[in-house]
């Protein structure tokens, strides 16, 4: 396949800090006369030119019809990369070359005017993406239908909700017959149904041989859409390769970094009356060693110390595992296990063991609470307890299903029977 986007040794430098005023310029003169031009204070006053390299020596080639995911932390240079490709900005050095018509979805509906109706804005927005009036006439109905805004199309857009606004923006962009589509985290807006349709639309464009560059922090979406991933770090390409492989490496590193600063986990986000409090929560493996990174299928023990201010009858200890992105995975409670004395007083220890935890590689956080015997009030609530991560390596849990998507690995069995009679086509 011929290349659709090519970057050769591209660097981009921005000036950091606020822009300099005339007063700053005079100030820097005074500072340099007094020999202070390099101290921190004059830099923060804007008296010294400080620059940031958003991109450094980036080489990149994207084949026509490819879908490339771009991942990395905030400030890694992902958006700068797209801005260079869309020609919104120019490289400080190196060359950026693109084949065909580029449409950037860096911000949806950026060209819309709130005083104009949806209909007028479709013409305005599509015009901004290079579509002629006659062409818009032809695909106008498709645009409106895809965005699902038929009812409001002749209403000024200032009356639209932000989700609707973004939907029409996305719709206009993908019908603008692009050769290269740049998507920057825009699928974070809109409801789940629209997100799914948007992903489908992008996949259809890829199927038609269009090139898609896709920035997202949602590894799930990136992996569903893209076959290749570029991992940006500090303005350079850290890694590039098959989507699954690079995404796993990235997630492992992000998870590890997040786990390193969990010391203050119990201090924040506390609720409840405080009559009973968790004093410390530890994650250990089967032999009692502290752990925060486990393999899929490993066992995990949550060891939670508590302290009661006065005797409390039949408290309910809850320990839940929450997926950072999607929510509750599993919730456990002592009332069902019945392993507790009728009343507690002073300090103690509760242990919850998850044998052979069949979780997919992701990052998880523990949510803990202590409720009263009727489950009407809480003595303690820890919404963000210690975190742990399940390492990705593609090994999976022995004997359990392990598809790429989803939160858990479960046993399952397929069966198949040939139909005895022809299927009723109703």
């Amino acid at each position, binding site marked *: 396949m011929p290349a659709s986007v090519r970057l050769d040794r591209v660097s981009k430098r921005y000036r950091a800090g606020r822009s300099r005023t005339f007063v700053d310029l005079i100030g820097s003169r005074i500072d340099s006369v007094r020999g202070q031009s390099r101290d921190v204070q004059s830099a923060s006053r804007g008296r010294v030119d400080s620059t940031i390299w958003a991109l450094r020596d980036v080489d990149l080639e994207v084949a026509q019809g490819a879908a490339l995911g771009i991942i990395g932390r905030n400030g890694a240079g992902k958006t700068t990369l797209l801005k260079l490709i869309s020609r919104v*900005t120019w490289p400080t050095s190196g060359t950026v070359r693109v084949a*065909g018509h580029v449409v950037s979805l860096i911000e949806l509906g950026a060209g819309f005017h709130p005083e104009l109706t949806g209909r007028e804005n479709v013409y305005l927005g599509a*015009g*901004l993406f*290079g579509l002629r009036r006659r062409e818009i006439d032809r695909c106008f109905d498709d645009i409106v239908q895809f965005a699902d805004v038929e009812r409001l199309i002749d209403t*000024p857009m200032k009356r639209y909700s932000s989700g609707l606004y973004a939907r029409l923006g996305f719709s206009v962009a993908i019908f603008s017959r692009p050769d290269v589509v740049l998507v920057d985290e825009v699928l974070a807006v809109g409801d789940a149904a629209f997100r799914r349709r948007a992903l489908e639309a992008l996949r259809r464009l890829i199927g038609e041989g269009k090139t898609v560059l896709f920035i997202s922090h949602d590894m799930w979406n990136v992996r569903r859409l893209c076959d290749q991933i570029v991992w940006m770090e500090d303005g350079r390409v850290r890694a590039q390769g098959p989507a699954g492989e690079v995404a796993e490496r990235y997630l492992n590193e992000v998870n590890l970094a997040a786990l390193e600063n969990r010391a203050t986990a119990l201090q924040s986000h506390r609720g409840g009356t405080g009559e009973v409090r968790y004093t410390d929560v530890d994650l250990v493996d089967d032999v009692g060693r502290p752990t925060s990174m486990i393999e899929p299928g490993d066992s995990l023990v949550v060891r939670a110390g508590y302290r009661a201010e006065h005797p409390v009858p039949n408290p309910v200890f809850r320990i839940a595992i929450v997926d950072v992105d999607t929510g509750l995975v599993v919730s456990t409670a002592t009332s069902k296990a019945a392993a507790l004395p009728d009343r507690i007083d002073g300090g103690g220890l509760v242990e919850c063991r998850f044998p052979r935890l069949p979780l997919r590689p992701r990052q998880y956080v523990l949510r803990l609470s202590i409720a009263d015997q009727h489950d009407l009030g809480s003595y303690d609530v820890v919404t963000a307890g210690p975190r742990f991560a399940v390492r990705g390596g593609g090994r999976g849990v022995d004997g359990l299903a392990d598809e790429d998507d989803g939160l858990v690995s479960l046993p399952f069995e397929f069966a198949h029977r040939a139909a005895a009679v022809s299927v009723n086509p109703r």
Partner: protein
Amino acid sequence: MSVALANPGVLTDRAERLGAPAYFELLMNLTRREVRGRYSQSLFGIGWAIAQPLATMAVFTLVFSRLGQIPSGGVPYPIFAYAALVPWFFFSNSVSSGTLSLVTYRNIVTKTYFPREIVPLAQVCSRLIDFSAAAALYTVLMAYYGIALGRWAAMAPLFFVLLVLFTVAVTMTTSAVNVFYRDVNPVVQIALQLWLYLTPVAYPLSAVPARFRLLFVVNPLTAIVEGFRASIVFNRPPDWSLVSISSAIILVLFIAAFTMFKYMDKYFADVI
């Protein structure tokens, strides 16, 4: 099909990927957006475009003609002033809103590519609507005062072209520099106020003392305003030497402004 410059099979580093017709349509779209945005939710609508020169004409008539005894060359002073106020307000309003245009449109300037000159040009184009409305009222005024157009009125399009070229040159310069230094805007607003009185709008050029003449000759608006008056009010030939000097100045300014704009526009998105 749109006229695409960029072939999907060929890598290129040029920014313009569509043909001129598509960008012209974009200019028209942004102009429409500008006009609609300005007059939507207003009862009087486009009427405001007429009110501005009309009200100023009334004040000028009182101050300069009645109190100041400024000569108007044998025609009613209101006509004399109005014929100059219409091109003046076209220039002044274009430059005034045009200076801020790139910053106002930073949303699209930082998010998508298109030739950046379209933004200030759309401001100038949107003021053409105001210009036409105000010019239409001029014909009403002429009928009221019983003045007819003569054959020299055929020269008016020349001054119109000079006016538009000069306005575009100034607007592109101020809008581009304003991206880097926001000081440009207040400077422009003050300059426009003074400029009105340093241009023979309220008075004829003939009333200017000889020692100030040079100041008026290098101001292209002098030739434009005096030219409009000569052709449609007095029905006589313009001052050709003044017109040629101004045309030369406008041409040089226009080329310089465009060149500078295209050099600076690569940095707009970074500093805006």
